[in-house]
């Protein structure tokens, strides 16, 4: 975790500096005369984040090194990263279908795709589960609540 903390601290400190020096001055214009700058609080928060990130880095570097065997495994496992990439990819496909085909196709693809990604291979369930979810949502919104989602 120490290594992860140092890396996270460095990334956040750099992010904070970039926001302070480049993004905030370009993205927040000056306010009217006599009023407080609109960038006051965002800048303050970025200063706090940068300073605390540096503290996080320094405190973790200075912390007593522990036995490598006692150090817990990396905080994020390979399976979790794969799950993140796959689910985001799935959302990308579903959003594409939503924009270019239909929301129904997007919903079906999202549920069936997630089942596939998570290891379901039985064709019947790959059809029935998305159909069941979409049917239940139609029932809830269009019949029970009496309103359209789209």
């Amino acid at each position, binding site marked *: 975790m120490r290594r992860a903390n140092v890396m*996270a601290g460095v990334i956040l400190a750099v992010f904070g500096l970039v926001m302070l020096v480049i993004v905030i001055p370009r993205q927040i214009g000056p306010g009217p005369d006599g009023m407080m700058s609109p960038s006051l609080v965002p800048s303050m928060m970025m200063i706090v984040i940068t300073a605390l990130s540096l503290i996080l880095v320094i405190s973790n570097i200075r912390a007593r090194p522990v036995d490598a065997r006692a150090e817990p495994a990396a905080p994020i496992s390979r399976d979790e990263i794969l799950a993140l990439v796959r689910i985001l990819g799935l959302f990308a496909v579903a959003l594409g279908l939503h924009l270019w085909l239909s929301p129904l196709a997007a919903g079906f693809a999202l549920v069936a795709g997630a089942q596939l990604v998570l290891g379901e291979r039985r064709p019947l369930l790959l059809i029935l589960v998305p159909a069941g*979810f979409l049917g239940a949502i139609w029932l809830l919104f269009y019949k029970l609540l009496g309103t359209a989602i789209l």
Partner: protein
Amino acid sequence: MDYMIVGFQDVLNPTTLFWVTAGVTLGYVLGALPGLGKATGVAVAIPMTFYLDPTAALGMLIGIAKGSGAGSAVSAILLNTPGEPSSAPTALDGYPLARQGKAQKALKMGLYASVIGDLLSTLVLIMLAAPLARYALLIGPVELCAILLFSLTFIGGLSGSSMTKGMIAAAFGVFFATIGMETETFVPRLSFGLLELDDGLSLVPLAIGMLAVAEMIVQAGNIKALDHESAQIVDGAAREDRIITRDEWRRSIPAILRGTVIGSIVGILPGLGASVGSFISYGATRKASKTPEKFGTGMIEGVAAAESADNAVVPSSLIPLFALGIPGSVIAAILIAAFILHGLTPGPLMFVQQPRLVAGVYASMICASFIMLAIGYFGQRLFALVIRLPLRHIIPGVLLLCSIGAYMDTNSVFSIYVMLAFAVIGFFARKLDFSFVTFLIGFVIGPTLELTFRQSLQLLDHRTVNLVHHPIAAAFILLTLLTVVWLGRGNGRRVGMAPAVAAVPGLDTTPGDTTEIKRED
């Protein structure tokens, strides 16, 4: 009192009761499923309540929060894997009871303790919130700014393994709240030319992304271990072991009352949350017992102590929200969005401006407690079956609901982009132990914090020394500094909790729990 009668009249009709029941049932199921807590349930359900009348909508959401608190005991007892971290101490004695073939007895005690704790804590909320709100009306911008700063520091320091990380998360929350049009100067901030960002980021897709989608991704990455846990359910309740005997009631009632008091106090204090309440209650009951050495081997009062405190926290955590408008927990932060959406702005003025709706909320909370008892009693066997469902069928459905929920917030795909962006942030926050609870609370109180900060600067004429004219504000600033020093020196949150958590077998096999246990609900 008159308003309470009207409130009950508003709630005791078939439509409202149906939605409160639906909320409790949904919450019970979500609570029983490991990793899907009350915050996730409420965040996903908010858009579904858009078209309900305010009393039914708020009753349903509160029903989800309450049902989830009680439902989390089911998996703690049957699987040794708490549905929510706050039920971890329930597993200490509940699981041994289940292994002795007394699962039904443990489940029933968990339910009764939950209902009693929840109901009594609701009464505490009703009695305390309005009187406290009268004093809150005397608070000016300088005092409010100092109180918000203190709350954020306190929560940031407590909800995570590192105060530095908690404070970073809080600062990020406030920072993201500044996106959009600035309210005084009407200058767009960090909107990158996108019209969708001119109104700022909406809490609903942000919370759905951080809480629900991120949790689903974490669970998807650990699906084999989680499904293996589900397959290990012990299902052996002998007939004679299904009821709670008179002697067990006699031993459990003091534990339930103690747990209710502890849970109510812990709930009022911002940032501590249900996990702290249930662990303290369990520890206190063990200490008060004549046979403390038997705890952990299947003592029914251990289940009673943990569950009563766990469920007492939810209603009492609404006291700072109702009295001061300050969310003390993530569930309170999310409920703010729902309250505002349905015309009830949490804070001292709501008792003056919307007394009928407030009474309706109170009445629905009381009704939800009794509905929880009925649902839990008759549905316990069914809920025990629900947690056998493989996650590969649950996660896709939750992802679909998340997408619909985010989309419905603005009727725009942009909300889904926001949800996904914050799902990624939430995923890394979970894994790297940056408290997203503090982030969400920072995001919710950010606009008020900024406004009161600006007003304070003007009222104080930009001179710190003028704080002497605002002793309450000065006291809270001093408390903030003391909190930073105290927490920073000891890094002393969760003292004594970690060993207890580590003692819960099964917790470490559930990734959702190992990360959740440090944060607040």
